[in-house]
């Protein structure tokens, strides 16, 4: 049976309900259980009963003891009452006596307190009187802080009683000493050997002495300036030293100048700015901050100038330069945190930018020099090399001028990209990135070099003395290579390496600010055209010279019957053959018009000769040639040269033949003179057609030469074509 406390079924609980309990027992238990339970309860009752009897017996004894004690106490209280009465009486007596004493002593007390007051005052006066000597002692000991403390302590009193003669003297003495102290402290300010801490201390003391803040600021800054100037001078000396490592220089700058400057700024802030702002002296705070600003700016600008000067003078590896600039930038940034009134990082950016510009310019100069060297080498070997038919030479020279140069530019692009390395602190500046990428690298370096290349190539045409003609051909090819692939390749390279397109949002803008590939390529093309024209002109003129001399020096009026082709014609053909093979090394064959067959060539030639032979007189031949010209298409003799072997050689031949024509027109011929020309021309006819794009052109020019000679002949009788052929074949 579970029984909870407070349960009415709990037989030991307070709330026990006998009736409910019995009912419950009767309800829940069978007879045997009830009888057992009854017996249990009965036993419990009996044991409880005996317990109660024991308790009552024990407590009875205690009651008897308590009654005895109370009886004893009744007797003691009677004597205590008597003692209390006698005490009361004696207390009254004491009170009376004390009153008597107090009244008798009252008169003396005032006097005593007066005396003790006088005593303390005297002690203080003694301090004041000894003050000058104390101060002096302290001053000599060098304990300036104590001096100031003592002085300030006494000052209030002294100023209060300053009108009294005796104190006036003391005050004067003290002031004198303090003035001396001030002098010493000021001298500290001017002393350049003093450490920062001592200086700060001195300034603090001076401040406590109520010196004018602003003039102190000035003194302080003046002193700091001296120190900084010293460091600056040291740096300035380093500028001259070319062997100095750049990183070392920057480190030296930050270790000496910058850390000093930081110290100055920090102590200035501590001493003046904070003190003043604490005292709510806004105006003075502002003035002192202004002073600091001017000071810092002056010095920083000097420093930046020196650094700029150093960087401008010293050439170094780009990697080292970038590292040095990186450190420099970080340092200045750190100062910016300390000194927030002006941001010097902008100036540093300028320095970095100018360093980058200078570096690209140096590279450009080197590149130009490299190109010039290569060109000079080629030129040198052209002069020394007599035989140009050495196959490798032309392609090798070309490679040294194109792919080598391109490789070199690649290297430079890689080198300069160190400026934009994300690890470098200043590389995050977008404007700087843009300036370096777009303005310096792309436009100045790459585009600048390409422009230089074309203009240098062009400039060779006015070079005196004239370089070997083949050089022009090599340079022509070089320009063409750049036009076709080099320009595009380089621009693509730079655009990719430097992410040029990032800086330009639309295509449209792109074209306006960047030099385009098309533009550069066309520049190259026009340089190539210029050079090839010049080559043709030079070669043409040199062959012309041969022809001219040969016509001018001969007495055509008294010629003998021709037996052979004149030697000069053979030389001309040889020369043209060699030029043609040179050109062939570098240039493609090019387009030709269809050739007539050998036999038709022969008949054409014979037809002309027959026409003249039968006609006989000058007027007839003139009419003939006029009619001939009428029916043949007008051929532009001096059409522009194209970049092919045929076109170049054709150009040279045209100039040469035109020269021959002009020379012939200046002379007068006898019959055999004319026939000699006829033989020569036939010889040229036999050999020159193979070099030209359109053989009709050669025919036309040769016809004109012959017709002009006929015209200038006193007795124009031509030779039998078969005889001419025999002479020519004989050699």
């Amino acid at each position: 049976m579970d029984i909870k406390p407070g349960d009415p079924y709990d037989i030991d609980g307070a709330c026990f309900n006998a009736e409910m309990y019995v009912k419950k027992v009767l309800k829940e238990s069978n007879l045997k259980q009830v009888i057992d339970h009854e017996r249990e309860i009965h036993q419990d009752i009996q044991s409880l009963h005996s317990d109660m009897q024991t308790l009552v017996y024990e407590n009875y004894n205690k009651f008897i003891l308590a009654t005895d004690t109370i009886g004893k106490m009744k007797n003691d209280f009677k004597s205590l009452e008597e003692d209390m009465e006698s005490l009361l009486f004696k207390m009254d007596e004491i009170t009376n006596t004390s009153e008597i004493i107090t009244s008798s002593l009252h008169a003396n007390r005032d006097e005593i307190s007066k005396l003790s007051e006088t005593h303390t005052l005297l002690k203080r006066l003694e301090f004041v009187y000894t003050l000058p000597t104390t101060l002096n002692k302290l001053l000599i000991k060098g304990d300036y802080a104590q001096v100031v403390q003592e002085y300030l302590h006494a000052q209030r009193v002294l100023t209060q009683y300053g009108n009294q003669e005796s104190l006036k003297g003391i005050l004067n003495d003290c002031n004198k000493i303090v003035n001396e102290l001030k002098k010493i402290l000021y001298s500290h300010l001017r002393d350049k050997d003093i450490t920062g801490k001592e200086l700060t201390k001195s300034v603090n003391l001076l401040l406590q002495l109520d010196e004018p803040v602003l003039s102190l600021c000035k003194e302080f800054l003046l002193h700091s300036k001296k120190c900084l100037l010293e460091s600056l001078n040291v740096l300035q000396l380093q500028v001259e030293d070319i062997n100095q490592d750049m990183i070392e220089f920057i480190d030296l700058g930050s270790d000496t100048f910058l850390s000093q400057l930081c110290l100055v700024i920090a102590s200035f802030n501590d001493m003046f700015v904070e003190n003043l702002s604490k005292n709510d002296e806004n105006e003075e705070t502002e003035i002192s901050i202004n002073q600091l600003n001017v000071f810092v700016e002056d010095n920083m600008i000097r420093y930046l100038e020196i650094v700029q000067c150093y960087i401008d003078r010293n050439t170094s590896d780009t990697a080292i330069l970038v590292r040095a600039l990186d450190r420099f930038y970080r340092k200045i940034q750190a100062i910016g945190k300390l000194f927030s009134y002006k941001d010097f990082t902008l100036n540093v950016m300028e320095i970095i930018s100018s360093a980058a510009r200078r570096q690209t310019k140096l590279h450009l100069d080197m590149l130009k020099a490299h190109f010039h060297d290569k060109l000079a080498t080629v030129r040198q070997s052209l002069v020394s090399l007599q035989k140009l038919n050495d196959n490798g030479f032309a392609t090798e020279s070309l490679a040294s001028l194109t792919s080598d140069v391109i490789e070199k530019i690649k290297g430079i692009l890689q080198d300069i990209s160190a400026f934009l390395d994300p690890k470098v602190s200043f590389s995050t500046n977008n404007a700087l990135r843009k300036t370096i990428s777009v303005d310096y690298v792309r436009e100045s370096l790459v585009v600048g070099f390409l422009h230089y290349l074309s203009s240098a190539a062009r400039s060779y045409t006015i070079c005196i003395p004239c370089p070997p003609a083949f050089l022009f051909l090599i340079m022509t090819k070089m320009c063409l290579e750049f036009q076709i692939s080099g320009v595009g390749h380089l621009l693509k390279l730079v655009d990719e390496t430097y992410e040029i397109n990032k800086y330009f949002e639309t295509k449209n803008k792109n074209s306006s600010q960047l030099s385009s590939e098309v533009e550069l390529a066309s520049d190259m093309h026009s340089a190539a055209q210029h050079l090839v024209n010049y080559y043709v002109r030079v070669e043409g003129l040199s062959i012309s010279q041969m022809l001219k001399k040969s016509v001018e020096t001969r007495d055509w009026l008294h010629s003998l019957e021709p037996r052979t082709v004149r030697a000069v014609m053979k030389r001309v053909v040889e020369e043209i053959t060699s030029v043609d093979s040179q050109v062939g090394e570098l240039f493609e064959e090019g387009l030709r018009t269809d050739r007539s067959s050998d036999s038709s060539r022969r008949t054409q030639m014979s037809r002309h000769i027959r026409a003249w032979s039968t006609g006989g007189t000058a007027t007839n031949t003139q009419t003939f040639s006029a009619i001939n010209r009428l029916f043949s298409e007008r051929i532009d003799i001096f059409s522009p040269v194209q970049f092919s072997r045929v076109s170049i050689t054709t150009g040279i031949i045209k100039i040469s033949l035109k020269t021959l024509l002009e020379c012939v027109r200046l002379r007068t011929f006898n019959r055999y003179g004319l026939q000699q020309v006829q033989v020569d021309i036939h010889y040229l006819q036999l050999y020159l057609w193979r070099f030209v794009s359109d053989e009709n052109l050669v025919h036309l020019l040769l016809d004109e030469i012959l017709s002009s000679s006929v015209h200038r002949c006193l007795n124009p009788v031509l030779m039998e074509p078969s005889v001419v052929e025999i002479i020519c074949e004989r050699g």
Partner: protein
Amino acid sequence: MSNNIMSNNPLIYGVEFQARSLCSLHAESDQDCFLIGTQSLITSNNQVHLVKLQEETNTLCPQIYEHSCGEIWSLASSPTDKCLITTCYASIERDCEKFTALWRLPENDGHLENVITFPTEKYGTDVKVTTFHPTNDAYMCSVIDNNIVMWDVGESEVKIVCTAVLDGKGQPRFTTGKWNPQSANLQFVTADDCNIKAWDLRTQTKIAWSLDGVHTQIIRDFDFNPNRQYYMATCGDDGYSKFWDIRNPRQPLISRADHSHWIWSLRYNPVHDELIGTASSDGQVLITCLTGISSSAVENEDIKTKSSIEDKIIATCDQHEDSVYCVEWSSADSWILASLSYDGRLLLNKVPKDEQLRILL
């Protein structure tokens, strides 16, 4: 002057013989007149054509004079007398040796009146040119082989005033010669091979100044800037025309290679000296405008600074079908340039209207 002559539509006059000599009739300042000398091996065929531009009808009207003593290699007209001309000529009959003579143009067609045949035999056989002194009627000068001979024709008889000889290796010869119009003295300037030499004829053989080796091939012609002291131009077989300040003979002011073959003739415009006419055996005649080195640049600083940009060819005449050997500006209308090609075609071109305006304004 009629405006119908445009550069793209030149007036044409044809001579039936070949010709390589042309000169403007310098003394005639009212009408545009040009003289042409023909070249024919048949001695008696040769003529001098005086071509006049008729303003009213805008046509060219010729007067033809017989020159039956030989083919004409060069021609010059007197700067003061409309009727006096000189020719240098050769004839088969005299073994193609060249001679020179002073002629008077008759009133009407007919034979030229021979005034003087100069006694050149003892100086050589190749007479290049005989020129009139720009101011003094009496003085003339001939260039023969390697000799300069100065004549005085003031009296009835011709007198030799002085001579100068070019000596050197390899038998040097003069190409042409001209009085220096910029010099008040008797200074005669010659071209030989690649050199220009100025001879002071008062002291016989003294060379006043020279431009040596200034072309890579022979110098064909040269001319003096009529309005700017010390400035001159040369041209030659290397196809270059070069412009000089003779005080600096090392470096030309400008060097141009506009032609593709020899340049035979070069002339400053007598009034607007920024205009230069050149003729070449590539068959082209060019008018080039060189503002920077013109006399107007001296007065106007602005022009000087922008000069090099504005140097350009302002007119190309390609209507000749043969080599062009001569150009001459008209003495009357300075905008007209005459050119003569070997086939005997004379063209009168005019400076384009807009270029005229640009120069005048």
